């Protein structure tokens, strides 16, 4: 597969490490959320046959974490974003 890195352009997927569902960005606040919320965050995933937003890490590259929107059936990649930008857009702060 080829991932179009927002900064570095097309890169072979072999340069990346795969993590999984991009909902891992939405970590609850440990000071307010309880075990149930964290359990849901950590273990419950959708497993769609189709469009999937997922985290890839450019380990053999610039160390960017990316959010890749990929169709799990066709492997078509329709969008690649810096995870940092996605996290900011979701309001993640200090």
């Amino acid at each position, binding site marked *: *597969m*080829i991932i179009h890195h927002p900064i570095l352009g097309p890169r*072979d*997927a072999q340069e990346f*490490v795969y*993590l999984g569902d991009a909902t*891992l*960005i939405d*970590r*609850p*606040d*440990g*000071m307010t*959320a*309880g*075990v149930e919320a*964290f*359990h849901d*965050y*950590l273990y419950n995933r959708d497993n769609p046959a189709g469009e999937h937003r997922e*985290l890839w*890490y450019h*380990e053999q590259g610039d*160390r*960017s*974490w990316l959010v890749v929107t990929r169709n799990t059936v*066709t*492997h*078509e*990649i329709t969008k690649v974003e*810096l*995870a*940092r930008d*996605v*996290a*900011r857009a979701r309001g*993640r*702060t*200090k």
Partner: protein
Amino acid sequence: MSQSHRIDAKLAGGQIDRTRTLRFTFDGIPYQGHPGDTLASALLANGVRLMGRSFKYHRPRGPISAGSEEPNALVELRTGGRQEPNTRATVAELYDGLEANSQNRWPSLRFDAMGINDKLSTFFAAGFYYKTFMWPKSFWEKLYEPIIRRAAGLGSVTREEDPDTYDKGFLHCDLLVIGAGPAGLMAALTAGRAGKRVILADEDFRMGGRLNAETFAVGDSQGADWAAVSVAELSAMPNVRLMTRTTVVGAFDHGIYSAVERVSDHLLTPAAGKPRQVLWRIYTGHAILAGGATERPIAFENNDRPGIMLAGALRAYATRWGVKVGERIAVFTNNDDGLRTALDLQAKGVDVVAVIDSREGGDLLPGIRHLRGAEVIDSTGSLGLKSITVRQSNGRSETIAVDALGVSGGWNPNVNIHSHHRSRPVYDASIAAFVPGQDGPQGLLVAGAATGAMSTHAALKTGRDAAMAALGLGTGPDLPQAEDAPVRITPLWHVGHGKGRAWIDQQNDVTVKDVKLAKQENFTSVEHLKRYTTLGMATDQGKTGNVIGLAIMAELTGRSIPETGTTIYRPPYTPVAMGTLAGRSRGKEFKPFRLTPSHHWAKEQGAVFVEVGNWLRTQWVPKAGETEWRQSVDREVLATRKSVGICDVTTLGKIDIQGTDAGAFLDRVYANTFSTLPVGKCRYGLMLREDGIVFDDGTTARMGENEYVMTTTTANAVTVFRHLEFCRQCLWPEMDVQLISTTEAWAQFSVAGPNARKLLQKIVDQDISDAAFPYMGAGSITVCGGLRARLFRISFSGELAYEIAVPTRYGDALLREMLAKGAEYDPIVYGTEALGVMRIEKGHVAGGELNGQSTALNMGLGKMVSKKKDAIGMVLSQREGLTEESGYRLVGVKPVNPEAKLTAGSHFLETGAAAVAENDGGWLTSKVYSPHLGCDIALGYLKGGDRKIGQRMRIVNLLAGLDTEVEIISPHMFDPEGERLRG
């Protein structure tokens, strides 16, 4: 007798160089051939048709094809370390000195004792083994399977190491053209002339595809000559790369293709510095599959004898290689292309005794005995074809003496690569074959016979048009004049007659009967048919047999062929050697060692090394007279605790963490607090995973207000860094924190023992007295009169200890300098074994305890998990199941009898309890011999262990025959008050 079957050059010159002779052997017998020959064409030229024995029945077999689809003529090529099994003689390029041997026969190819299987064929039908060798169950693995495996099979692998190299490479292009027949050449010409970057790959060593095997004209010249001229034009273009002997084996995502180039297989030995094969990864804008078509046979009884071939192959051997397979030849066909074979052979002076045409009516070929509405129903000849039995349209049978028969059941487009992404081929009744379906790999177009366009004109046109479409070109070259004959075929898949066996898949010995059996047992889906009968498996992947098999299933079940469907294809298109997939990643190059800065010094001392991840670390350093490893390790431990020892700890991960939020960031990633750590101090840190399990540990030092240096375990250096980047970028993007791995930048040594400070003071330029550099101090210093360095007063051994780091290139010099300057303290260098002894004596956790299943509470470090702040793993570490009072706790263990031995992995049992899983109390995680305590000691996880200190239990290891009484003690077994490390 040499090359008795070579046709006179005036009648059929062929694409061979008759002025040069190549010598080769087959089963030890010497033969001769010419440059341009394959092993199969050269053997056929010498009158050798018998080239192998079949998989199951050990039937004598010869080649049925002239290409990579060959199911039968599999040989062992070369000898010694270069021996290669299952090589198709039809694609093995002849070279001077080639040695080939037949396989799957004993004692000889002509007389094979296992031929008895053929007589017992009733017992070897599909599914027979599974139904018969069921009982007793244990017999399968021990008795039945080994016998069956020995009897059935293909070639044998060499036990010697392959002396050749294999390589991998990467290529980029606008257009990859797969196959260099008329369609592929025309596509490449179209794109090449337009200035596009083109790669044209063909599995053959000569480009031209079928044009080399045909007598058609293209434009004003012979097809083969037009191909040669086109190749010459392409090879002069700097934007075109021509790759012969290169098979595109797979289509992968996003326009990536893999190809195997056989760089040296046509040479006796590879040229110096050249690999045998290269696995290419080709990145393409677009690709055109112009892989042509493969002819299929018609099944009839005993249709597998040497001399019975695909009609197109007979024609190819005659036209391209100037070889007549027999003296008296017949052709059995259901389509016009078979007639072409008869005419071509006759034109070359071959005696074509009959054409058996299954179609009723129609014109008869002039000058040839052309039987319409007739079928071949049987054959004779034990080691090679002697005669065929023909049933004529009036029902009369006739035996015709022939020594070669060409069979044509039609041509199957090579859709293989087009279905690598699960695109299903669709049936085209007009050519009675499957053609590429929808949703093939993105960017892949299909042209020529691969798309069902069977004439030369159609190939040229679709090739050009595909290139224009792929590249968005408005114009393309004019097409040369070429034949445009329509496909005229009346499907005939098998000849129904008698009770004999009619082969569909010759490689797997699958017959029409097996398909009938599959139907009878309700394995009617094509996928079941394939698995039940093994139709289409093994090296040829059913290139000639699949479609017949499913067409017969369609007949039997009364469904149409489209209703029956077809299996699809996966990479690779043709077999790929394991060595090619491995490339350079062999031996140590598969997993190279990382060497520590002290490696060369240690090697000079005769040190023993151990692999730790990718690192090669010093395990111990034997001295003269030490004959057993324990002597060295005990000495290293005692010497360190008595005076001073040095250990290379460079392998620990090191991460520089900087920024105004660095402290707050560390509070989030460590279970304990770091923002309160004073500058110039370090602290032990415990890192959890989000699920509350301990991930890693290490010390982190605060080097400045906004600057920390983290250390990780050797094993987790990479994953911790990855995790920190995840936290930084995905969880807390607003934090001002930057990370960089400096593991490779610093050589780091632990200097431990009562004299550690005295030794270091001889190296370090600054005052490092206890007052100036107290316990857990950290800072930037200089050594040896100005070299920048870092010093940390931390201890893994329990001794007064430091870790000192210098830029990596000075690591070797620093070690030598410390040993020289500190000689008066008799410093020793200790390895990972002594390191392990000392850390276990101190109860520090490491690999065996950091097992990815244990919590801080299990390790006795539960209080380190701060609940005053949010940190990774904090919440889930409080889960009910992880906080049980009676859960595992880290304990120390020593045997009641000091002579008794312990083994790691042994289990805790109460005295008197039976050694069964229900009574299991936990296990020993790490064990060493402690020279200070004079006995084996261990760490372990014991249920409720913190409440069992002082109790006696048993340690049981049923595998090691161990059952010994032990005392549960504190894990801090040596200097529990920590007086030494604060000294």
